[in-house]
C-alpha cells in the first residue's frame, strides 16, 4: 500500500478498511452487504442516500445489533442523524447483513461437516499407517 503522501482522507479510508474486518464496527456489515448485493461504493451510497466519500466514516461507527431492539433503534437513530441517512435503509442493511452472517455460519458448518466426511477415509488410512 505504498502511498506517496498520507492525507487525513487516506488515513480514514485505511482505518475503515481495517475496521471492516471487525464485527465491532459498522464497516463489517457494510462490507458484507456490499459484497452480497454486488454494490459498488456509488450504488451503496445511493442506497443509503449519502455521498460516497462518507462511507468510510460510516464504517468506523460502532455496529448496532438487532439482538437488543432498544439499543438497535437508539444506535441507528444516532448514526442516521449524524450522517443524514434514511433510518429505514440503514436498518435494512444491518438486518440483511445479520441474515447473511447467520446463513454463512450454517453453511460453514455444513461445509466443514462435508469436508470432514470427504477426508475421513484418508485420515483413517493415515492413522492406520
Amino acid at each position, binding site marked *: 500500500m*505504498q502511498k506517496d503522501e498520507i492525507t487525513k482522507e487516506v*488515513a*480514514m479510508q485505511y482505518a475503515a*478498511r481495517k475496521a471492516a474486518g471487525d464485527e465491532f464496527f459498522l464497516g463489517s456489515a457494510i462490507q458484507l452487504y456490499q459484497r452480497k448485493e454486488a454494490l459498488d461504493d456509488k450504488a451503496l451510497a445511493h442506497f443509503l442516500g449519502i455521498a460516497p466519500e462518507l462511507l468510510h466514516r460510516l464504517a468506523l*461507527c*460502532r455496529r448496532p445489533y438487532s439482538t437488543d431492539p432498544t439499543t438497535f433503534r437508539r444506535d441507528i437513530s444516532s448514526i442516521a442523524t449524524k450522517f443524514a441517512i434514511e433510518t429505514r435503509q440503514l436498518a435494512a442493511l444491518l438486518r440483511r447483513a445479520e441474515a447473511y452472517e447467520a446463513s454463512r455460519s450454517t453453511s460453514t458448518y455444513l461445509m466443514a461437516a462435508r469436508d470432514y466426511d470427504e477426508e475421513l477415509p484418508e485420515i483413517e488410512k493415515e492413522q492406520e499407517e
Partner: protein
Amino acid sequence: MSNEADLELHQRLLDGDAVAPEEVAERYLFSLQQYLQSKHLRVDKDSTLDAAATAILNYVKNPQSYKPELRSLFGFLKMAAEGDFINLLNRQKRYNMRVVALENVAVGDMAGNINIEEEFISREDLTLRLKAAQDLRSEIALNEQDRQLLALMQAKIRTTADYAKVLGISDEPLEIQRETVKRHKDRLRLRQKRLAQKEAGR
C-alpha cells in the same frame, strides 16, 4: 482539543455511543500517524499508519483501557500507538528472520541437512542448480502471477509490498497483505517440496 471535550468523548465511548468511535478516528487518527512519522523518519509511512489505526481501533473497542487521571487522551493514544508500532516492527523482523532461515535451507550447502527441499536444490554444480530452478519455475508456476511470485522468492525479495503488488492487494491493510502473501508463499513452498519429493523419486 480541550481535556473536557476528550473526557466527554471518552465517556460517550464508555456509554456505547455508536458514532463516538468515528469521532475519535476523525479527531486523532491523522495526528497520531503524523506523530509516529515524525518520530520514525526512516520507517515507511504505511507502518506508521497501520500502528496509528490499530491504536485507535483498539481504544474505541476497549475505552476502559484509558485512565483519564493518568494522562491526556492524545498522550494515551501516542503511547498505545508507539506500542503497536514496536509490535509491528518486531513482527516484521521475526517474519523476515523466518523467511531468511527458510531460504537459507532452500539454497544452502549445509552438509547433513535432511530437509527434502535442500536435498533437491543442493546439487553441487551451479549450472545444474540454475537449471533445476528453471525446471521448477516452469513446472510449478501455473500462471503468470505464480511465476512472478516465484521469481521474487528466488531473488530473495522479502518486502511484502513487492508481493502485494503482484497479487494486486497493495491497497489492502498491511496485515491482510502479510497474511495473503504468506499464504501464497507457503503454497508455492509446499509445491516446491512436492516437486522435490517427485524429483527424489525419479
